[in-house]
């Protein structure tokens, strides 16, 4: 093997050999892998790098947005009217529900107060838009257009209209990466709404499937049960819908049942998601309202989170 001739760099001013440079860069790679994985020291570096790549994401997203805009500005009248009617109907139903929820929330707040429980109630929320870019086909992650600038932080809960969406994995300056509840590296603390049975819903990597691997064969679950967040783990506030049980398979010889669920949020179709800030509720008499958001929020925002202005 002619090592000399396979080195195509100029003879003068060569610098270190190919092998040496490879070795050096490989060492750096392994170094940052260890730092990033073991200790998570590189979070701020990641933040900066993500912000650096953001313009590219934006460029990819723009034509799709423009297409949407063109589509909506030339939408024909009948379709708009249909859509309008549908929305009006939905709003009526939602308002009805809201009225009931208001009283329930108030009751709930009083009960929590009695127990001096500190389970978080969504305090403030913000609508974020999902950028239309594919990050990795085998992982369920998306990019949203709000970042650390808007107060987004790592580990923040993200909700969709119909259920829990995921949590913030990395927050760049103007964008954040969100890991979906169906990602195979994600687990959601849940409880069965019917009887309060707690478990963990683990993502499978399939967009319409969660598994609950830690339910024993004699546990009380059945197909159709609603799963809501249990509030344990401190990421998701309690009581938000996560999914619906689709399959329960019991084999008496096994310890654990095979339980699968379908996420309620339309993870692959929703374009807008809700970021929520939920601080543990301080005992109500000791904390006078400091700002407008927290004054109105505990009663209304938990029932129907509204975008912060």
């Amino acid at each position, binding site marked *: 093997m002619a090592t000399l001739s396979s080195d195509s760099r*100029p003879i003068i001013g060569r610098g270190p050999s190919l092998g040496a440079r*490879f070795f050096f*860069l490989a060492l750096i*790679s392994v170094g940052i*892998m260890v730092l990033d994985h073991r200790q998570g020291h590189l979070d701020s570096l990641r933040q900066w790098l993500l912000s650096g*790549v953001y313009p590219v994401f934006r460029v990819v997203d723009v034509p799709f947005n423009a297409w949407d805009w063109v589509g909506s500005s030339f939408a024909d009248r009948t379709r708009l009217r249909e859509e309008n009617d549908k929305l009006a109907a939905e709003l009526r139903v939602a308002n009805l529900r809201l009225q009931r929820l208001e009283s329930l929330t108030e009751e709930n707040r009083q009960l929590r107060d009695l127990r001096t429980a500190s389970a978080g109630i969504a305090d403030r929320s913000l609508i974020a838009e999902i950028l239309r870019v594919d990050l990795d086909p085998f992982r369920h992650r998306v990019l949203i257009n709000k970042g650390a600038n808007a107060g987004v932080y790592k580990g923040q809960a993200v909700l969709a209209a119909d259920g829990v969406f995921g949590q913030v994995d990395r927050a760049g300056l103007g964008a954040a*990466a969100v890991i979906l509840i169906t990602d*195979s590296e994600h687990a959601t603390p849940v409880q069965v709404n019917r009887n309060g049975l707690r478990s963990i819903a683990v993502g499978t990597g399939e967009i319409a499937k969660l598994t609950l691997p830690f339910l024993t064969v004699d546990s009380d679950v059945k197909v159709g049960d609603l799963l809501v967040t249990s509030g344990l783990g401190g990421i998701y506030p309690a009581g938000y819908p996560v999914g619906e049980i689709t399959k329960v398979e019991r084999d008496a010889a096994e310890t654990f049942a095979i339980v699968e669920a379908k996420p309620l949020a339309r993870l692959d179709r929703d374009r807008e998601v809700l970021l929520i800030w939920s601080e543990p509720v301080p005992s109500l008499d000791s904390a006078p309202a400091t700002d407008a958001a927290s004054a109105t929020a505990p009663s209304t925002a938990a029932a129907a989170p509204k975008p912060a202005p």
Partner: protein
Amino acid sequence: MMHESRGGFGRLLATALVALVLTIVPIPTAISWVRPDWLLLVVIYWSLVSPRIAGLLFAWTCGLVIDVVSGTVLGEHAFAFLLIGFLTHRLQLRMRIFPIWQQAFVVLLMLLIFQFLVFWIDGMTGQAVMTWHRWIPALVGAAIWPLITSVMDTVNRRFAR
């Protein structure tokens, strides 16, 4: 066969950027796992055509960008890109005189090594993706290698000084 060129760091960056855009542009989920590793193919191409400009640092940086974009452990793809860049540099003189199908075969081997390395590091740092779909981008990448070289050669000639 391959068009010799010097200079043109701008071309290098421009093609890398296009490859990055192709990497993240949304396609239907049903065929999302078919998408080849565009940026890696571009890195291999430039390492073959003008190794003096597209050095190991270029390959490593491209890998790091992929790490940032796909949210894997920082350094994972950087290392994999670096290894492929190194292999290409070592085999560069031989690969350039290969007929195109033979070149595509070597590229296939490289892409498989790349996928395996990423799979391996994934497994060490967390959850590896356990599906055979993961190997498809390598096959697709090798299959379109002749196309890539011809397109890139054209670009090269058009924008050569």
